[in-house]
């Protein structure tokens, strides 16, 4: 899912802009380790494959991607820890 406007608010933000794959995903996983269940994390990434990688990881790990927002020079990916 990719939208142009954010449909949800995040509880916390991980700014991984500038990092190459799989850095953004690993930064996200570190944050998922640290937060409580139900927390929505916004991952900011300009790595091209981040939306796909995060979607695949979330599906396998039992978490949920709630929003992918195209911000022009980067994506804002919202993930809820389940």
């Amino acid at each position, binding site marked *: 899912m990719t939208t142009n406007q954010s449909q949800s608010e995040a509880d916390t933000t991980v700014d991984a802009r*500038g*990092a*190459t*794959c*799989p*850095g953004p*995903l*690993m930064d996200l*996983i570190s944050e*998922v*380790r640290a937060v409580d269940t139900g927390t929505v994390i916004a991952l900011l990434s300009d790595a091209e494959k981040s939306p796909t*990688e995060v979607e*695949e*990881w979330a599906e*396998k*790990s*039992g978490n949920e991607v709630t929003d992918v927002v195209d911000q022009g020079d980067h994506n804002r990916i919202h993930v809820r820890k389940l």
Partner: protein
Amino acid sequence: MTEHIAIVGGGTGGTVLANTLAEKLGAEIAADKVEITLFNDGEDHVYKPVWLYVAFGQREPADGRRPLREVVDERVTIRHDYVVDIDYDRKELELVDAIDPAPYDKLVVATGAQLDPERVPGLADGSHHFYGEDGAQALRDELLTMDGGHIVLSVVGTPHMCPAAPLEFTFMVDDWLRERGRRDEFDITYTYPIMRVHGNEHIAEWADPRLRERDIGVETVFNAEAVDPKSETITSMEGTKLEYDLLVAIPPHTGSDFVESAGLGDGGWVDVDQHTLEATGFEDVYAIGDAAQTGVPKAGSAAHYQANVVAQRLASEVRGQPAAAVYGGKTICFIETGMDDATFVEFDYERPPEPSEPTQAMHWSKLAYNESYWLTARGLL
């Protein structure tokens, strides 16, 4: 007036930089226009890749260790102290043992990476590793006395030093057991945190079939959540549990506390311009090697090339010339694929790695490089 160049960290990046600068600025040093000071908290320079071979009984830890004073040009002042903070306004470094702060006009942070196994419960007690002298020796003793069982190599933390090393260990332990006719007494499993067997897609595509054809189990999307040393199990946050007889882990890494306290970047990693290696938002501060957030692997070769670039930039700045040298992301890496063969990759920000078919000649090239490393540290190779 003397210009002070301060380098914090005496690993590969800091040492190559100090030696290259001493060579480039020899005339200015002789004329007391420039003073180069290398700050290091220990007495020795350590070549960490030796530890992988220590685990297989092929090298001793002492083979990777020499007094820093023997490796660093005599025109460089070495101070064995720990830098804890920076006063950017006064351009001074705060030290643990010295009463007076140390002045700098140009500062290079080369503080490297360190292990942080405490981030995963049970990991420190329940696993072995080859990312330190003691760890590599303990792993060697365990390997030599095992009667068979399940060896699990788990990449717990990324980024980590030498991204090729987990694959190298896995290929080497497989081959090491085959050479002894004992491979059928062991199962081997390799785990990686994301959907492929390595962070770099090209390396992953090359390595994946090689792992499987050697009957090495592969668990991807495996982020270790906890290790239970009593039951000898490792559990991932994705819900997979593995039983092991020997767990070899790549522990989580962190940067220097000093980087964090000096406000240079989160987690001990310095935010830098990936081409100029200047610290983002700070004047006259550079970072190189594992400490620098460039996007390239935390590898000695990257630190070496970055040190050369910063040496050129600093020499230009000292002479009042434009600093034109830039880092293009160049990294080279040997990858052992067994006890007797290896491949080689070279890549940068634009060009991906392309591993070639492993050869015995490349394995010997890696061993030869390990021997000649001391010339690299001295800035000669």
